[in-house]
């Protein structure tokens, strides 16, 4: 069994500042990290490695710095790491990213499962897995947990707002792993050192992937016209006093605001 896990490097939201006056994210002091949602996909793939001997390949599209999250994945015990990096890939949107990643997945070949996070903490479109499945013409299960791989099929729970559905798909398939589906792994300490001292990250660019710059631009369909700071929410008001009086006041407020008839 071969499992491919596409992962993404994002800014650590704890280190990003929001400049409300300019409507931009201030990333001057921001630190980079592995997208938290992708850790669930890696943990699920590594569970399949431990229990069923799967070979796990982590891939990431990004600038040269993104190599660090692949090394981190190696430290968690993935078998192979590939960085898709090229000047031509900078600033691509999710639809072009899917074209690039799908090409890499084809090159790796002979895979059974593609596991992804549910959404990235950066732009958070949540479209990557569904678009990738569509592009590769593969079945998909989004927000998946409780994976069982058996007899050329994968069975998983698909999380719904009020419960879950058990879905089955033939292999190969694309699954986005639900947050909380498992306990994400820590890199091991010897693994952390070996990830830099002994292991290698393959770097594939435009040429290696047999893509042309036109294919990238043609598939980029998002245009960013501007960014806005989120609305500032005012703090709620606490209605004090006797409960019966407070309830009356609350009802009046809600009626006055058109929230209750």
């Amino acid at each position, binding site marked *: 069994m071969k499992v491919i896990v596409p992962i993404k490097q994002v800014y650590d939201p704890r280190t990003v500042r929001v400049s409300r006056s300019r409507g931009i994210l201030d990333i001057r002091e921001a630190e980079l990290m592995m997208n938290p949602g992708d850790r669930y996909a890696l943990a699920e793939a590594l569970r399949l490695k431990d229990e069923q001997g799967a070979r796990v390949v982590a891939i990431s599209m990004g600038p040269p710095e993104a190599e*660090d999250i692949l*090394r*981190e994945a190696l*430290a968690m015990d993935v078998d192979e790491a590939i960085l898709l990096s090229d000047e031509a890939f900078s600033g691509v949107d999710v639809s072009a990213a899917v074209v690039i990643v799908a090409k890499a997945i084809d090159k790796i070949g002979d895979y059974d499962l593609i596991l992804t996070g549910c959404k990235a903490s950066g732009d958070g479109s949540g479209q990557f897995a569904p678009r990738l499945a569509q592009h590769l013409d593969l079945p998909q299960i989004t927000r998946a947990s409780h994976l069982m791989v058996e007899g050329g099929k994968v069975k998983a729970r698909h999380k719904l707002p009020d419960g879950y559905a058990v879905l089955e798909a033939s292999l190969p398939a694309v699954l986005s792993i639900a947050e909380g589906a498992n306990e994400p792994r*820590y*890199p*091991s*300490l*010897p*693994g*952390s*050192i*070996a*990830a*830099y*001292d002994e292991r290698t990250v393959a770097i594939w660019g435009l040429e290696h992937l047999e893509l042309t710059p036109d294919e990238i631009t043609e598939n980029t369909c998002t245009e960013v016209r501007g960014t806005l700071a989120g609305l500032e929410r005012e703090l709620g008001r606490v209605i004090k006093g006797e409960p019966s009086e407070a309830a009356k006041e609350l009802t009046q407020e809600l009626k006055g605001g058109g929230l209750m008839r």
Partner: protein
Amino acid sequence: MDFTFEKKHELLGRTVREFAEQEIAPRTPEIEETHTIPDDLLQQMAELGFFGVPFPTKYGGAGAGETGYCILMQELMKGNPSVACLIGAHTSIGATAIYLDGSERLKQKYLPPLCRGEKIAAFALTEPNAGSDAASIRLAAVREGDSYILDGTKIWITNGADAEIFSVFAVTDKTMGYRGGHTAFVVEKGFPGFSLGTIDEKMGIVGSSTAELVFEGCRVPGENVIGQVGMGFLTAMRTLDHGRHGLGAGCLGGAERVLKTCLEYAKYREQFGVPIAKKQAIQFMIADIITEIEALRSLVYRVAWLADSGRPYRQLGGICKLFGSEVLARAVDKAVQIHGAMGYMRDYPVEQMYRDARITEIFEGASEIQRVVIAMEAFRKLGVRIEP
């Protein structure tokens, strides 16, 4: 000159920091109550390779060197000082004695299970009459055929109740004293004639065990001699020299944790209508803590760099331990003052920080001994010998 960490050390540091925050720190109430570190936590740490960080990969270590080890100690101390203490005594003195002077056979036999965390190590030097004066040990080792028979006691041995492998220092020739008369041995918990005596109750680091070891005709195979017969005192001193910067690193992490607690408290605690952070008296104390932390950080990682690049670091290692433990002591003292009565109460973490910090000025060479060693070295360079 470059003060940045290598990427591999950054990853190791981030991992330990997150592990300490998420897995170790939340167990503190349990550790304080039971006076022991939960087995499942130690098991998890063993699986992630926390027990052999500085040692080469050929012995099952992480190969992270002294820089990696200092990062480990710094971050562990933020999680829980008892856990840091267990790993510290295991790694930088217990296993290091074998690593520094043991034969290749001894290293191959004992280091891999120690690095994997399957067994815990301890360093047994102190005796009732030999604390700072380590040359006065009396534990006797008498040769009998291919073995040595050990008789006597060791006290206040960190990890004593948890360890299975002990680096033990004994007298093989009374007439020669510490120059040629002391020998180091690897003693396994299961050797006949070895037993645990009193397990001590302490002021702080209560999750780390401290015990008396009793040797009654304890038979140790001759092949378990660490290094050469008669050279044990040197092994002890070399091991202790080797471990000092790690302690300084632990103190650095401890002081950083203290600072964080003080900053958070001063931010919201209001007196006279304003947060106490706005009071100069508080600002001055916090500024002093920060200044000392930054000085200590430079010192710790300078020593680690010296050690990893094969340069001499003996004197600076002692300075690092001395300064580190006193920086931490001053930081916890100020922390209690900043927190006022709350800093004195058992229900709040500052009280524990204060108790846990005190030992760092005592164990692995008391501050006074460090000062003597530092001065000795300075005079030695002038050709003047001063002996303790």
